[in-house]
């Protein structure tokens, strides 16, 4: 990596077309998958009951499902979780549940646990049990969507103020690109979309933005100090200057995330995978797409020539 050449072509019209096509393909696949596969929403958003139990020996989830069906839980979904001794049981919220029924629904977990214990010869262990009421589920989903939009809005505003509005638009476009691709991957591989995945999405925004800002920061500096007036040349030089940093940071972040994926166990998998995909795509975006957007928006040297005050800030000491 230390031997990366210093004159990679990022910004020629041919290269821009290629990366444009790659991104377009990724976006189309992602959107198609979102339309066809949709999401497998987690309990946080669907509402219902979830019980994770640990058996002392391996069990067949189908048998457990039969036990539950016999007992009247026709809608029970039973899957193994991590190992074949850990079983996850999910029950949907029954139709027409209102607040008064919440108290009954909330005790489903205990009932199922007692039932499974009665059917099992060996002691089973309650590992976790969750109940999310319909109202809470809807609220969490609403707040989650709101969080994404607010985050994007704030970012756009900040970048537009701190840099220039074209940079603001380009950075948000780049972020939207990343989010859509990550969402596509989540839907394509049927990963469960729950609150932790939502947190991962926001972290992807944070990370990808970090990357993009570093590029823009350098671009702004170069627009001001380089003698060339050709945006293509300036941006290309910028990207060549930051590429080594971008790679190193992505690498260290991916290392930490891989550690999370390896050590973190089943519950954190969706979170880790979303972040890994997000960081990878974010790296690609900051190198290829965000400056591409700047070019589309027709960035010129004049756009950044104005404020003298900001120029001082660049050189200020901590």
């Amino acid at each position, binding site marked *: *990596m*230390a031997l990366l050449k*210093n004159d990679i072509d990022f910004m020629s019209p041919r290269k821009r077309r290629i990366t444009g096509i790659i991104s377009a393909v990724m976006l189309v696949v992602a959107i198609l998958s979102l339309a066809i596969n949709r999401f497998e929403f987690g309990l946080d958003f669907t509402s219902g009951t979830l019980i*994770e139990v640990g058996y002392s020996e391996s069990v067949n989830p189908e048998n457990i499902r039969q036990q539950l069906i016999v007992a009247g839980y026709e809608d029970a979904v039973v899957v193994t979780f991590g190992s074949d001794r850990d079983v996850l049981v999910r029950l949907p919220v029954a139709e027409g549940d209102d*607040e008064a029924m*919440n*108290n009954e629904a*909330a005790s489903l*977990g*205990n009932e199922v646990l007692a039932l499974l214990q009665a059917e099992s010869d060996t002691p089973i*262990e309650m*590992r*976790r*049990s*969750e*109940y*999310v*009421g319909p109202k809470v589920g809807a609220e*969490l989903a609403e*707040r989650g969507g*709101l*969080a994404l939009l*607010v*985050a994007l809005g*704030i*970012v756009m505003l*900040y*970048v537009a103020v701190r840099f220039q509005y074209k940079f603001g638009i380009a950075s948000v476009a780049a972020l939207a690109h990343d989010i859509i691709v990550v969402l596509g991957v989540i839907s394509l591989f049927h990963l469960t979309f729950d*609150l*932790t995945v939502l*947190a991962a999405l926001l*972290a992807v925004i*944070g*990370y990808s*933005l*970090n990357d993009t*800002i*570093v590029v823009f920061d*350098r671009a702004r500096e170069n627009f001001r100090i380089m003698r060339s007036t050709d945006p293509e040349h300036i941006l290309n030089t910028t990207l060549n200057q*930051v590429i080594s940093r971008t790679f190193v*940071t992505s*690498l*260290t*972040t*991916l*290392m*930490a*995330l*891989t*550690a*999370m994926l390896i*050590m973190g*166990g089943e*519950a*954190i998998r969706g*979170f880790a995978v979303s*972040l890994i995909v997000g960081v990878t795509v974010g790296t690609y975006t900051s190198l290829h797409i965000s400056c591409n957007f700047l070019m589309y928006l027709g960035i010129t040297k004049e756009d950044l020539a104005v404020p003298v005050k900001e120029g001082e800030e660049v050189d*200020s*000491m*901590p």
Partner: protein
Amino acid sequence: MLNKFPLWKNVMVLLVISLAVLFAVPNLFPDDPAIQISHENDAITELDLGMATDALRAAGVDYFGDEVTDMGAMIRFAGLDQQLRGKSAIEEALPDGYIIALNLAATTPDWLQSLGATKMNLGLDLQGGVHFLMEVDMETALRRRMENILSTIRQELRSERIRSRSLELVGESEIELRFADEESRSQARSIIRDGFSDLQVQARETGGDYLLELTMLPASIQQMQVDTIAANQTTIRNRVNSLGVSEPIVQQQGPDRIVVELPGVQDTAQAKRILQRIATLQFHLEANAGASSTSYEVYDYQGQQIRVDNDVILQGDRVSNVRSALDQYGQPQVVINLDAQGGQQFNRVTRENIGRPMDILLIETRTRTVLDEDAEGNTVERQETYEERRLISHAVIRAALGREFVITGLSGQEANDLSLLIRSGALAAPMYFIEERTVGPSLGAENIAQGAGAVLLGYLLVMSFMLYYYRLFGLAANLALMINIVLLVAMMSIIGATLTLPGIFGIVLTIGMAVDANVLIFTRIREEMVSGLSPQNAISSGFDRAFSTIVDANLTTFLVAMVLFTVGTGPVKGFAVTLMIGIMTSMFSAIMVTRFIVNTIYGGRAVKKLSIGPFIKAA
């Protein structure tokens, strides 16, 4: 350019690092499993502790470090197994009224504790336990209140001989009064204006009827909501205390929700039974001097033995409002409002009993564990419910009382407590469980192990890479990274933030991203070297020029984390917290600490070459 920090900067960096170490250190002392004994009403003495330790010795359970503190008695155990056996032994030995809770006792040395250095709080997903989110049914509370008001208005109009066509509740919270003529309406209106300051009155005519539409003032509704949720919270807190859980959390969330977190609780069914129970309130007279011993019961009230007559003169459901206030002389008092029927009933009784004390009992249903013998003669545990009656007020009737009366002679605190207790018995609104999450203790321990493993592996990977890629500068960055983690842990401990599993993964992510600032600086130094600057100048210029980039990049990430914190709930909030703190600490460590280390190595001397890894010279 000699790259030396001024003395004050060196001192500051060292000071911050040593403070961070000091405040992070308590997290290294594992807690002892312990049992905490308290009593519902009385303080715990050495005597109580002696009873408990005798029971432990008799049962052959090893213990140590038994002491009486202002929180009750604390007994420590070497393992979780002894702790559990100890709990059942003590439960058997001590009479009812004692609360025996499993707890964790800090092993942090006293001198650290006296500095205020404590551990991070662990979230329920790390220590096991149950989280409930309960919603208070405000609509029902409001409707009940309006029904109450309606029945009172009906009585008043009848006693004033004002004729009405109809009086009814329309929708959830509007009262509609119909009159045949305008005069009755204006009479009714003046009665309502005098007696019901909470109501907003609107007059209207339709089809020859003269209408009054009564709704609660928005401010009054708001006040009612605040009071109701406070009442419910008091009820829940009382019940949670009776569960014997160490460090429970009962917290209001939003205008109508209450979060209950019970660390270590596994039996959610029992916890729920207890939380849902409704308390009731009864008004009694004090028994006469010569009353037969079967006609009264004796209750303890602030150390006095009070004989309370068995007859109930008024049930708590007649209470329509309670508040603590100050009278015209600034003395605290509790103001109690009754509904119309209650007012009449109460007036009759009190008129005949002026000068006699009146008592208020709060009745709560509770559960306890009893040991039984089953058919085969084995001892089995059984849950038994029983009523617990508590005398909460003992006051002399000074006059014939009506719909509104006051209890005086209390301190401000007592007045507050009493009005909350009366509320919890009389005015608590129904509550629903809208969310429940339980984590078993083994999963909690597993989560901690997985989290710690991820942090360690992540750190090792990143560290090896940095060392390989940036050599001596990499070492500086690694040291800074380690200090960053110490800083993060110290900050979390100081502000009392709660560490959750997603929070740990926030730390892992921070490790990956924290080196970014160093990478930015180091690449910049390499660049400056390539463009021909001397090593000392390259260091100085690299740090300076990367600074604004670092600030920009981190500030935006911080903004996103703040959004996450604002809209996130529970574990996600934990993630946002560590991310935010991580960003702040990593900026300090990456800029100040790394510079400090680099300056210490290279500063103030002639340097020909920097150990910052290979880089290409411009061709």
